[in-house]
């Protein structure tokens, strides 16, 4: 049995763990990062998109070096109703101009591996292919980890082990995950030549699309997404598993039909599926953050602590993971007293705007819990559009008639619209 001692042991080489290790190593601390995958990133899955400001907070100029896909110039929302689709597109050159574009599409295997290599350059030690089985506790304080036959000791352990965080559970900081608190995300990566992607999506070289898709989940709380990578498209969908179970229709099957939708298929036609993934995502926003993401000798960061935002139009996890990792590092650099690290961590989460940001968008969860969003409203939108665009030689209905008919057809009332509209304005 070997026994080693470090200033800090980080469990998980995702963005949260690596950001923390990077900062600590930069300040001369002895840091060990333990990753259960052979390579950092090989267990990780995103939609996805990454907001670059977080990487610039780790070190200015880091984004320019990062393994990223396409800078997002086109923000899109697609509403699907049967074979029909309503699209809203927002193109903003300011999002991609300047030295650091606002966001990039991203694939995690390459990004996480690159990010881990930067932490290694700072002096962090990263070992892959080892799973941490348990924590070592002494007099109520976490003092190390157990991996197989090995025990490793440190002044502090950082749990960055992702959404399921079995480590935070072992530490007694979280209970079982409630089935309505998470979404199950599935994704296919579909290869296509870069020029085909640019042509189909009307993109300049290196630019990309981030698209949210509503109405593609058979009425289940959730939605689809499409991101253009350099030479592939990430197409996927997220579903509330509880509603999937009640619906008795598998997530795999619902998602497969999205691929064949007349408004989606032409975008991926001729492509080759090269990977199929699945991952949980926390849906509770601010209310899903661990009440106490720390105890003596242990800090919990990233997905493990619940730092995810979903506003419907943007989903943020990787940036918040990095910020929380930085907050943990700042806390540990600010105090050498392990009993005080937790409160320093909370202060740093405030200072780095993680908690204030999440608190501000707290109401989006209520907004997204409006069940009419996932069936009746997409159908209503498409019906209104059909009324506006259909020309068949008959006397066309007036707009008021189009709307009242569409409401009636979808079992909606003006009262629903007003009530949900107000909810939207209040919570957003």
């Amino acid at each position, binding site marked *: 049995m070997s026994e080693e001692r470090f200033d800090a042991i980080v469990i998980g080489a995702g963005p949260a763990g690596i950001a923390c290790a990077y900062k600590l190593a930069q300040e001369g601390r002895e840091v060990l990062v333990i990753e259960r995958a052979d390579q950092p990133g090989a267990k990780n899955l995103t939609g996805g998109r990454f907001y670059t400001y977080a990487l610039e907070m780790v070190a200015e100029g880091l984004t320019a070096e990062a393994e990223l896909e396409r800078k997002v110039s086109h923000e899109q929302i697609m509403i699907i109703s049967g074979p029909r689709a309503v699209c809203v597109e927002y193109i903003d050159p300011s999002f991609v101009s300047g030295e650091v574009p606002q966001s990039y599409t991203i694939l995690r295997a390459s990004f996480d591996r690159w990010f881990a290599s930067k932490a290694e350059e700072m002096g962090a030690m990263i070992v*892959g292919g080892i*799973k941490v089985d348990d924590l070592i506790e002494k007099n109520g304080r976490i003092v190390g980890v157990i991996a197989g036959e090995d025990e490793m000791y440190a002044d502090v352990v950082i749990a960055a082990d992702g959404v399921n965080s079995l480590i935070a559970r072992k530490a007694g900081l979280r209970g079982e995950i409630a089935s309505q608190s998470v979404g199950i995300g599935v994704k296919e990566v579909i290869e296509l030549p870069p020029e085909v992607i640019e042509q189909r999506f009307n993109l300049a070289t290196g630019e990309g699309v981030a698209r949210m898709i509503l109405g593609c989940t058979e009425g289940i709380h959730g939605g689809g997404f499409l991101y253009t990578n350099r030479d592939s498209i990430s197409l996927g969908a997220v579903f509330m598993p509880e509603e999937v179970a009640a619906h008795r229709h598998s997530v795999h099957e619902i998602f497969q039909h999205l691929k064949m939708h007349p408004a989606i298929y032409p975008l991926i036609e001729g492509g080759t599926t090269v990977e199929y993934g699945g991952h949980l995502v926390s849906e509770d926003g601010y209310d899903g953050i661990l009440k106490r993401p720390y105890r003596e000798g242990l800090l919990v960061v990233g997905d493990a602590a619940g730092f995810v935002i979903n506003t419907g139009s943007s989903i943020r996890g990787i940036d918040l993971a990095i910020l929380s990792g930085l907050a943990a590092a700042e806390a540990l650099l600010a105090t050498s007293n392990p009993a005080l690290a937790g409160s320093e961590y909370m202060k740093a989460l405030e200072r780095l705007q993680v908690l204030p940001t999440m608190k501000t968008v707290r109401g989006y969860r209520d907004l997204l819990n409006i069940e009419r969003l996932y069936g009746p409203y997409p159908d209503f939108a498409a019906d209104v559009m059909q009324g506006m665009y259909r020309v068949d030689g008959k006397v066309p209905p007036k707009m008021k008639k189009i709307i009242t008919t569409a409401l009636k057809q979808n079992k909606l009332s003006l009262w629903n619209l007003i009530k949900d509209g107000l909810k939207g304005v209040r919570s957003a």
Partner: protein
Amino acid sequence: MTIDIVSAPELLSNNKFNVDEENAHIAINVEICRNCADKPCLYVCPAVLYRLDKNGDLSFDYAGCLECGTCRVMCQQKGIVKWQYPRGGFGISYRFG
């Protein structure tokens, strides 16, 4: 693989797995599962690894597991008697992610 509606096993064949032949990281108790009326695992597992055999009993194949944890969250009757991540270096290995 060209774009079409594809079965889960066919989709999973695109992925890189290093299956731990000696050790199943997830185990179910068929007796408990027999008494579970809802069987949410049949629908929520993205890899569709929970299936009913010809006797109507639940079967599970851990080899194509994506390690997402959805079955653990959804299992109400505790028929999943063991849920761990695979041993270090085993299981799914995303090449894209």
